[in-house]
């Protein structure tokens, strides 16, 4: 047995990709059952999975996809019409396949029940849906070739042969699944057939047959004087043949004449379509071929390798900064020039490496249409999910983490946001609810919006819930405005209380959503209007590895504050600091901003120097602002974030460390927890 373990990663990746595309295409098919190109894509994906899994020895996956192919083939030939039960079954198949593939990934023996699905599929194949009675009349086995998909030359060959008393047969040969040398078998079949008559057409083309570029099955048209039984016996005498079907291929003379009248190109197109559907390489479709070639120019790279590349680039950036410092302090003109060059190159290099790590958010968004569909079916709501900006790119590390919070928000929107039909009617809304998932760039951030046109969140009921659950005191609650009340949703544990009494239900695990997004360096906000809908605004950094930061000095220590959370820096006299209810605040453009003394928060050893001037860095987390008092502003710099390691990871106020130009380590402030 061939050692397949080395192909395992590739198999899993490709299988997952194809499963995703199956999911997407099935959704498209559900919306437009007549779209044949979607069917073709589904067929191709299923077929690829079948081929891969058979090679890797995963019989269950291969078997199930094989059965799926049968149904898909019937759909493609318009013998079956795609209806709900078929699409649902296909979805179930995809789900099962997903489970099977994950079992493979986790090295577990699968206990997924494929037999019942296979039964379901074959019963669907046998009993074409009653919703489309017209399709029943057609027999399942029909000649694939007829007047519409043969070229005029072929038709004229057939008709002239018929006149000479020869018969045209369409021969469909299916090789055994375990057939090793498909091309050789095909060659033997063709040879045997040539003995009996003339072959005028093969699908796929002869070259493809010779090269083995075909599925287990191929067809050809044979002009012969012998009867169909003889042909069948002759071909079946070759080993490794599963089945042979010989069907008379009848072309009426009228049709033949008609065909002559029509322009040649139309028929060529038809054949092209047929060929596309038979999932063989497509010589006749240059556009598709081109696409395939372009697809082949990408390389799969282990994310670890990219990580180490990024680390090295990070080192380079640090060393570049060091060089810059040497250049400036020694006033070396020549060096400065060279450093500028290096600067340009490293900046480019850095942005290229960052781009390589970027993945479109579509990768995460892809699975949502299916989820929303299932959920809305389950809840009996009609919901239209609109996705925009799926090509917005985010760092791989962020992409991997963002899925769960989004699932949560979307589920909430579908489950609790969108009202049931009668409610929607009575409030004068469209019957179909709308959930929007939008991604876009905004400066150095990516914004992801989850928006619904449902009933919104009622601040008053949140307040009630919070009071009942003992999350806030009555006196505090009365002081809070609506926005503050709604932000209570993010309190840990608030969720359960809300779910039990089910007022708006929102808040199930919202604290988890918030925590996750904050660990990614992002923020989440809620905008909501009762009766009009809610909007969750997630703001994420493009990457987590290199950030812009402001370096500040506190006594003798240097700290970095991420620029993304800085509003502005101001310069004040000590007497500008006022005290309100025992807390230090400043008044900035009419806004009262609390003051944080960094030396106290960080227990910095004091250096006993009276400062006449104060530097204050105004920072924000979400909509909350605070002023951080520092001794000096050193400057803005690009810093590479380094982890402090497992030994020190539990320190709240420090988000990480970075290495400065002089080789010293500076700590990065976690503004969120400094403000708490």
């Amino acid at each position, binding site marked *: 047995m061939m050692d397949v373990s080395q192909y395992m990663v590739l198999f899993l990746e490709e299988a997952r990709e194809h499963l995703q595309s199956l999911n997407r295409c099935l959704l498209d098919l559900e919306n437009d059952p007549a779209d044949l190109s979607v069917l073709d894509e589904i067929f191709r994906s299923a077929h690829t999975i079948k081929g891969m899994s058979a090679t890797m020895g995963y019989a269950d996956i291969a078997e199930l996809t094989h059965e799926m192919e049968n149904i898909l083939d019937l759909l493609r030939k318009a013998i079956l019409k795609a209806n709900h039960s078929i699409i649902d079954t296909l979805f179930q198949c995809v789900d099962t396949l997903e489970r099977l593939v994950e079992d493979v990934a986790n090295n577990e023996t699968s206990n997924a029940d494929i037999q019942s699905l296979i039964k379901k599929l074959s019963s669907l194949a046998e009993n074409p849906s009653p919703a489309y009675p017209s399709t029943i009349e057609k027999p399942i086995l029909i000649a694939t070739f007829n007047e519409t998909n043969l070229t005029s030359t072929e038709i004229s060959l057939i008709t002239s042969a018929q006149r000479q008393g020869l018969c045209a047969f369409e021969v469909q040969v299916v090789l055994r699944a375990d057939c090793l040398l498909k091309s050789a078998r095909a060659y033997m079949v063709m040879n045997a057939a040539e003995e009996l008559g003339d072959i005028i057409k093969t699908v796929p083309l002869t070259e493809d047959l010779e090269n083995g570029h075909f599925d287990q099955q191929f067809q050809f048209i044979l002009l012969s004087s012998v009867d169909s039984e003889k042909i069948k016996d002759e071909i079946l005498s070759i080993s490794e043949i599963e089945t042979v079907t010989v069907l008379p291929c009848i072309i009426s003379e009228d049709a033949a004449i008609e065909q002559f009248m029509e322009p040649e190109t139309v028929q060529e197109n038809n054949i092209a379509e047929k060929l596309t559907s038979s999932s063989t390489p497509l010589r006749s479709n240059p556009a598709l071929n081109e696409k395939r070639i372009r697809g082949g120019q990408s390389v799969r790279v282990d994310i670890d390798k990219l990580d180490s590349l990024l680390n090295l680039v990070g080192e380079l950036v640090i060393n570049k900064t060091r060089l810059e410092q040497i250049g400036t302090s020694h006033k070396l003109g020549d060096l400065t020039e060279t450093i500028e060059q290096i600067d340009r190159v490293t900046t480019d290099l850095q942005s290229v490496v960052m781009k390589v790590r970027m993945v479109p958010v579509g990768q995460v968004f892809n699975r949502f249409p299916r989820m929303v569909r299932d959920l809305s079916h389950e809840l009996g709501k009609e919901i239209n999910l609109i996705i925009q900006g799926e090509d917005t790119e985010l760092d791989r590390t962020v992409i991997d983490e963002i899925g769960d919070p989004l699932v949560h928000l979307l589920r909430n929107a579908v489950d609790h946001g969108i009202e049931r039909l009668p409610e929607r009617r009575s409030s004068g809304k469209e019957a179909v609810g709308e959930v929007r998932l939008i991604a876009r760039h905004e400066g150095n951030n990516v914004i992801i919006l989850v928006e619904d046109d449902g009933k919104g969140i009622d601040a008053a009921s949140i307040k009630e819930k919070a009071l009942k659950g003992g999350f806030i005191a009555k006196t505090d609650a009365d002081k809070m405005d609506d926005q503050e009340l709604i932000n209570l949703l993010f309190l840990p544990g608030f969720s359960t209380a809300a779910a039990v009494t089910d007022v708006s239900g929102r808040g199930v695990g919202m604290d988890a959503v918030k925590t996750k997004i904050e660990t990614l360096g992002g923020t989440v906000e809620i905008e909501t209007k009762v009766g009009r809908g809610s909007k969750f605004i997630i703001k994420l950094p493009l990457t987590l590895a290199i950030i812009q930061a402001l370096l500040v000095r506190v006594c003798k220590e240097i700290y970095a504050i991420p620029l993304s959370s800085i509003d502005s820096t101001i310069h004040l006299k000590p007497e500008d600091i006022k005290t309100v209810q025992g807390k230090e605040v400043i008044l900035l453009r009419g806004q009262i901003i609390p003051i944080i003394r960094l030396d106290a928060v960080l227990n910095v050893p004091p250096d006993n120097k009276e400062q006449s001037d104060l530097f204050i860095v105004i920072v924000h987390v979400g909509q909350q602002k605070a002023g951080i008092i520092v001794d000096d502003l050193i400057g803005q710099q690009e810093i590479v974030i380094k982890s402090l*390691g497992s*030994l020190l990871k539990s320190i709240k*106020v*420090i988000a990480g460390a970075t290495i400065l130009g002089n080789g*010293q*380590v500076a700590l990065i402030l976690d503004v969120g927890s400094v403000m708490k």
Partner: protein
Amino acid sequence: MSQNNDSNEEIQLVIFRLGSEEYAFDILTVQEIKRMTDITRVPHTPEYIKGVINLRGSVLPVLDLKTRMNLLPTPITEDTRIIIIKTEQVFVGILVDAVSEVVSMKCSEIEPPQGSGSIVTENYVKGIGKLGDRLLIILNPQSIVDVV
């Protein structure tokens, strides 16, 4: 290892000084030995964590072994070294007063730690080695790093 009485088996030890006592690590756990460098203090950490240093681009925590083992503090001198050790999960720098030499020692010459009579917290000690009339306290790096 301390129980191993196969007299032919030898281990190599890195000997260092804390105050006036001599200690040792198995050389296999020692990654490198560095001169004293700038240590960045990290707030909200236990006292024995001196801070972090830059080791060729990685940020590494440094432990003050004397504080960790409740020994009397000594000032930083020319001889002060940072021993970088590798344990199961992490690389850590250990601040010591001086590193003197590397010696080979037969396992049979190492005795298991005594139950009492030492100011050193028992857990950290792997064994006591006898080198002529010198006594080496062989430490267990893992337990030093483990956050209690």
